């Protein structure tokens, strides 16, 4: 990777990141002008901006540059790009914002697209988990990791994949935006446990058998960062999932439940 390559990736990733933030804030301003809807929570805007900045930090700037030679820095970037940024962006409910901002005609078209089988396929918990965790196994246990540093286009495609797979994985497990293809809490929990296990096992696998070209010391610190950092972000996801469960089983007829039992 040379400086011209860095310039290319800076522009390729930096411009969409700035555009995303700009569009989101623009949509919030437009939607807040409509008096009949409640004000868009500022926490969502904050979550979106921080999420995009975290993703950008893994793609451009000092961390991204260091990632090319340092596996630990690479793993810190991976946690930001593939886990924390997707979660923060999902929490910002971008589709809800878009549906609120668009006029009825376009909102209907978008909602039809979201209900379609194409979106349904990729947001199926098992498909999303396989894309996310399977992609990581492919990256770190084959020669793909070394090839990624030699080929700029491979580098770009893999980084886009890591972010998108992380995002699809997140929205397939916790429902923030409207979801038409819904799965039960039990179903999502079981898939989620296997996905999380796949991530943890891969971390220890990298510790034991570092990817080609990665020094053992870097691989070990990077693997532990992946293991415990992954746990930390997953704890947030698990907490949100169970909080939704807790809200969904709220007893509506407390009195009659008690009455029946007496």
């Amino acid at each position, binding site marked *: 990777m040379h400086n011209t390559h860095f310039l290319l990736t800076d522009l390729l990733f930096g411009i969409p990141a700035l555009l995303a933030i700009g569009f989101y804030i623009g949509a919030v301003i437009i939607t807040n002008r409509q008096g009949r809807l409640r004000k868009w929570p500022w926490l969502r805007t904050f979550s979106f901006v921080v999420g995009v900045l975290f993703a950008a930090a893994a793609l451009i700037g000092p961390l991204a540059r260091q990632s090319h030679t340092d596996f630990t820095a690479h793993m810190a970037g991976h946690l930001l790009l593939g886990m924390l940024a997707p979660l923060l962006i999902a929490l910002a409910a971008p589709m809800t914002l878009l549906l609120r901002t668009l006029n009825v005609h376009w909102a209907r078209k978008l909602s039809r697209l979201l209900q379609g089988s194409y979106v349904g396929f990729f947001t199926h918990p098992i498909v999303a988990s396989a894309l996310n965790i399977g992609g990581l196994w492919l990256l770190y246990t084959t020669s793909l990791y070394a090839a990624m540093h030699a080929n700029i286009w491979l580098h770009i495609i893999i980084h886009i994949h890591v972010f998108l797979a992380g995002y699809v994985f997140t929205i397939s497990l916790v429902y923030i935006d409207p979801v038409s293809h819904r799965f039960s809490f039990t179903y999502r*929990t079981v898939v*989620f*446990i*296997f996905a*999380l*296990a*796949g*991530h*943890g*096992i891969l971390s*220890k*696998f990298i*510790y*034991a058998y570092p990817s080609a070209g990665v020094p053992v010391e870097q691989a*070990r610190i990077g*693997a*532990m960062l992946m*293991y415990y950092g992954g*746990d930390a972000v*997953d*704890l947030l996801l*698990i*907490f949100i999932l*169970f*909080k939704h*469960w*807790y809200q969904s*089983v*709220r*007893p509506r007829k*407390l009195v009659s*439940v*008690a*009455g*029946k*039992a*007496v």
Partner: protein
Amino acid sequence: MTTIHNTQSNSGNRATFARRNLWSGILFGLGFVAFLDETLFHQLLHWHKFYDKSTVAVGLISDGLFHAFSWFATVGGLFIVADLRRRNALWHKMWWGGKLLGGGAFQLYDGTIQHKLMRIHQIRYNVDILPYDLVWNISAAIMIVVGIGLIVSARRERREGRGVFSNA
């Protein structure tokens, strides 16, 4: 009057949600022991290794699955406690019985199958390991026995209308 009525509803709710009390305890107990294992023996004492070269492949899978499951069990178990409290149905004796049973069962599995058979890692390195293994597994067995004892006793109280059910 109100107090008596509430007691009646509470014991009724406990009976209705007996299994949920038990499973919430088992899940939280398992998650709690796994969490203690990670903080105490991995992070603070540095006795356990992150990875041991003698680990067999299935050990890596078992460790990964249990580690992932324990996170869900801890958080999920506590959310179920919150749900039981909201329903006035938290039954402490049953819950603690489940907690000790779940925690002890995981510790025994960890101490025998995962440490010895799958060789994920040992409790401590460069020491005579036998006393460590004995303390580990005997304490696990004690937790299981006490846990089952509490569950049996809780069931008997419900059947015979004693303890928390004495007003029902």
